[in-house]
């Protein structure tokens, strides 16, 4: 029996209820309409080797059979047997966590695509805070931390299917919910939501809330792009991207002293202080000699 099996209707109901809570100045209904495709099809599995690999194969077989792949389809698995993180890092994905990916047929402009990683981190942090964990935060770009420990990590990969060359974005997610036992090397570095809240969480319900937030934040991506294409100001404060404004409200990265590197774990490059985020989401770093540098890729660790 599959444990994590939210329904599309459940996701949509939460999205429509959530969107009513938005301030009136936001075009909430439009955002909702833009984002409704997320979770329109949900496939739940007992186990998979890797959700993103499964997603790529499914895209190929669907397109090869002459059908159109449903954008926003979500693939979930109660456990992953060959999961991995960025680079060659391992990712522990046993029963109890939210593991899977969302497949997005890429219809965003290049400048909007770079905000996709922000959308997924913001979505997760919003849900976790909704569960009462007020001290959860996002570390640039999208790691979700609670008290310095990692609760969730995300992978965003583009994929071009070989038959017609259509581009997809696979948004992979790994969220520690009821899986409170970690390998020894992750002790003190990773944490599960059940340990913070001291109770077991309904996995399907959490996932439905997460997907509803993801739908809302993808809706914001399209909405902001639409504003830009119409020559209108973006919806955030002082004309910043609304998603970036939400990210700034959830993140504790600005002001931190950090170690920066493209692969910061195996090849740290330099120490710096985060002094801000530029309009496209780039990290503004002040190095020890006082000069500033903006990074658009890589990762940081707080020191």
């Amino acid at each position, binding site marked *: 029996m599959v444990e994590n099996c939210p329904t599309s209707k459940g996701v949509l109901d939460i999205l429509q209820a959530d969107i009513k809570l938005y301030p009136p100045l936001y075009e909430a209904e439009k955002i909702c309409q833009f984002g409704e495709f997320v979770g329109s099809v949900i496939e739940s599995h007992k186990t998979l080797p890797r959700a993103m690999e499964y997603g790529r194969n499914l895209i190929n077989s669907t397109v090869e059979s002459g059908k159109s792949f449903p954008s926003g389809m979500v693939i979930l698995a109660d456990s992953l047997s060959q999961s991995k993180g*960025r680079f060659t890092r391992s990712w522990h994905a046993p029963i109890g966590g939210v593991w899977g990916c969302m497949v997005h047929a890429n219809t965003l402009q*290049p400048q909007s*695509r*770079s*905000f*996709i*990683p*922000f959308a997924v981190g913001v979505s997760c942090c919003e849900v976790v805070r909704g569960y009462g964990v007020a001290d959860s935060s996002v570390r640039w*770009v*999208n790691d979700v931390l609670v008290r310095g420990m990692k609760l969730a990590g*995300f*992978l*965003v*990969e*583009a*994929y*071009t299917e070989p038959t017609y060359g259509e581009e997809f*974005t696979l948004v992979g997610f790994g969220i520690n919910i009821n899986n409170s036992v970690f390998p020894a090397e992750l002790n003190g570095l990773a944490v599960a939501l059940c340990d913070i809240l001291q109770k077991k969480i309904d996995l399907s319900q959490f996932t439905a809330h997460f997907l509803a937030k993801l739908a809302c934040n993808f809706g914001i991506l399209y909405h902001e792009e639409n504003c830009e294409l119409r020559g209108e100001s973006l919806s955030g404060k002082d004309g910043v991207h609304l998603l970036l404004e939400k990210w700034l409200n959830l993140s504790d990265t600005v002001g931190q002293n950090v170690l920066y*590197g*493209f*692969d910061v774990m195996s*090849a740290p*490059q*330099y120490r710096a202080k985060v002094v801000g985020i530029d309009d496209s*989401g780039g990290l503004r770093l002040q*190095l020890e*000699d006082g*000069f*500033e*540098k903006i*990074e*658009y*890729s*890589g*990762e940081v660790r707080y020191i």
Partner: protein
Amino acid sequence: MKNFISKLFKKNREEESHGISTERDLEELLNTGVLAPFECIDVQAVHTGRVVMKLAAGDEVFAPSGEWMQVPGTVLYEITRERNHKLIKAHYNGTVEKVHTEFDGQFVEAGETLMTIKHPLKKKEVIEQLLKDVLFFFPAPETASYFFSVDVQRQVDRKGARVVTIEPGDEVLTMSLMKRDAPVYYDGEKGVIHSVYFKQGVTVERGEPLIGVCSHDKLPVIEKIITKVRADWYRSNR
């Protein structure tokens, strides 16, 4: 002395097409005493706007520096459009050859030449400049970090880049932007990866070359150019 190297490239291209060796052109380069050659770089307006020049002819200009390129280059001009001020900084070191003072304080169109910088070329740059005629430069589609795709990296690790053959449609690189990894498909002529211009983890500006590719039959010409420049550079600096 206006852009001697560029003239030479043109000559090389014309003569190459008639099957003539580049030997004579290289001799010309080295025999005319251009052993520390330079390039004249036109600095153009990045977009329309009102410009204020920050330098005069003869001023020295510095490129970005520091271990992480965190020290910005010399400010060349300021441009303002719709209350958006930008300081445009130098990417190259050198000396200001000419400033179009008639544009100082004026509204200019994008691409208007504002000044010219005389940039001394290093040996590596001379070689790269000469190779421009022979290599196909594959540019960065966006400002981001790049690394070779798994397959290409495996071949590079095993045999070195210069024996890796790529052709249009091959997934050669991965672009990493805001932790979003996207495959980059090669769309140039079939050939071997002769030059690699990116380093893993270092941001490449949009339009800057990522790799230089050449067909197998051009490899001997390239090797000849490199050997010649290196030998003569060494001889002249002994």
